[in-house]
């Protein structure tokens, strides 16, 4: 009898503890949830001024306490039976002039997925910056794709031609120098950049201005569709 009684008491204890802890966790979620969400968004948003304007102009803007207007939208591209998603951030200067776009793209690297932010100018004609958000490449070798010096090669490259990776000092317009010992990681990043440019440059034009309050539209464009309309 006493065993049954103590088991019943135990069940009450577990339920009571569960309720107490559940409430505590709900409180934590209510308080910290928004902070965590803000952290996730800030991660990307903080990089956008530098990517589109370059270090100096971005610092100038920050010094003058001015912020850029940024709106995001998702583009879906269907190709060869696969679907790829890109998040595009359109960026306007405080005076309303469109200054560029930042595309969040990902692709397969040497070890795992590489996520990067690619900055393009307003017409999508040249690259304004590159930032690697997430990578799991080999430390000391492939992880060098995160270094400023290597990423700086992508700045001011035109989007007209595919970029090629060369070992040992690429000097020409459309060449990227590979990291020594990490050719595959270098090729993966360049490949992601090329694919992104090929897929997304047609979708960069926006008709709304910075102040229009339309919610970010999800565009389901198939590149082939436009051809049919002719």
């Amino acid at each position, binding site marked *: 009898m006493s065993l049954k009684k103590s*088991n019943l008491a135990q069940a009450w204890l577990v339920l009571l503890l569960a309720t107490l802890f559940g409430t505590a966790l709900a409180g934590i979620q209510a308080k*910290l949830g928004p902070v965590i969400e803000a952290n996730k968004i800030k991660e990307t948003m903080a990089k956008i001024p530098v990517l589109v304007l370059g270090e100096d102009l971005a610092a100038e803007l920050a010094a003058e306490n001015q912020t850029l207007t940024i709106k995001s939208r998702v583009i879906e591209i269907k190709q060869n039976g696969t679907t790829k998603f890109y998040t595009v951030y359109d960026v306007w200067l405080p005076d309303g002039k469109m200054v560029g776009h930042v595309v969040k793209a990902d692709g397969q690297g040497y070890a795992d997925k590489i996520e990067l932010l690619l900055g393009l100018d307003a017409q999508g004609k040249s690259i304004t910056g590159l930032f690697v958000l997430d990578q799991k490449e080999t*430390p*000391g070798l492939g992880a060098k794709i995160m270094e400023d010096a290597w990423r700086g090669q992508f700045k001011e490259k035109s989007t007209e031609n595919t970029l090629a990776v060369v070992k040992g000092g690429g000097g020409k317009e459309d060449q990227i120098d590979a990291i020594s010992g990490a050719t595959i990681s270098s090729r993966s990043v360049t490949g992601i950049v090329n694919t992104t440019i090929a897929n997304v440059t047609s979708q960069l034009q926006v008709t709304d201005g910075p102040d229009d309050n339309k919610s970010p539209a999800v565009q389901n464009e198939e590149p082939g569709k436009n051809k049919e309309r002719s």
Partner: protein
Amino acid sequence: MADQPTAMERFVQGILPENPVYRQLLGLCATLAVTNGMKSALTMAVCVAFVLVCANVVISLIRNLLTPHLRIVVFTLTIATFVTVADRVLAAYMFQMSKTLGPYIPLIIVNCIIICRCEVCASKQNVVIAAADALGQSIGFGLALASIAAIREILGTGMLMGFRVLPAFWPDWVIMVLPPGAFITLGLLLGLVNYIDFKREEARK
């Protein structure tokens, strides 16, 4: 109960003589995973300390209400709650570190150290002793993590917490910051600790 260790004794025992990693071989998953940088190792040690102390205190407060059948459930529930709290606080205030540590913070729930201490100590002793035991074990765990992380980070990158320790011509032993380096470092350090032990016993004889 006169022969039970006091709070102070338990505290000191946990640091080196009953070190959770080197002596009891508990919590190896966390030890191996987060020690590729000193910063992550210290953050993990602090999180484990928080969960261990809180869980020990709570379990010790309700120790008279526990029966053999459902006590594991109660332990698990308590530990899981505190781990969730630690995880959320980390994600809110140290977002980058939370991303680096990734799934290893929730894995504290199944870290054998905490369940073992709850079972062995907190469910039988009063709050002060339980808290002292938890603190001692946490410091021991932190020491173990720091020792492994120091070796891995210095040999693997030549730097420690951002300061250059080895000269620039050091060819970084990248293997040290990769998974095999963790296994090998821990194995060698364990051998070293055992060797020191044996030498000390021989000296005593």
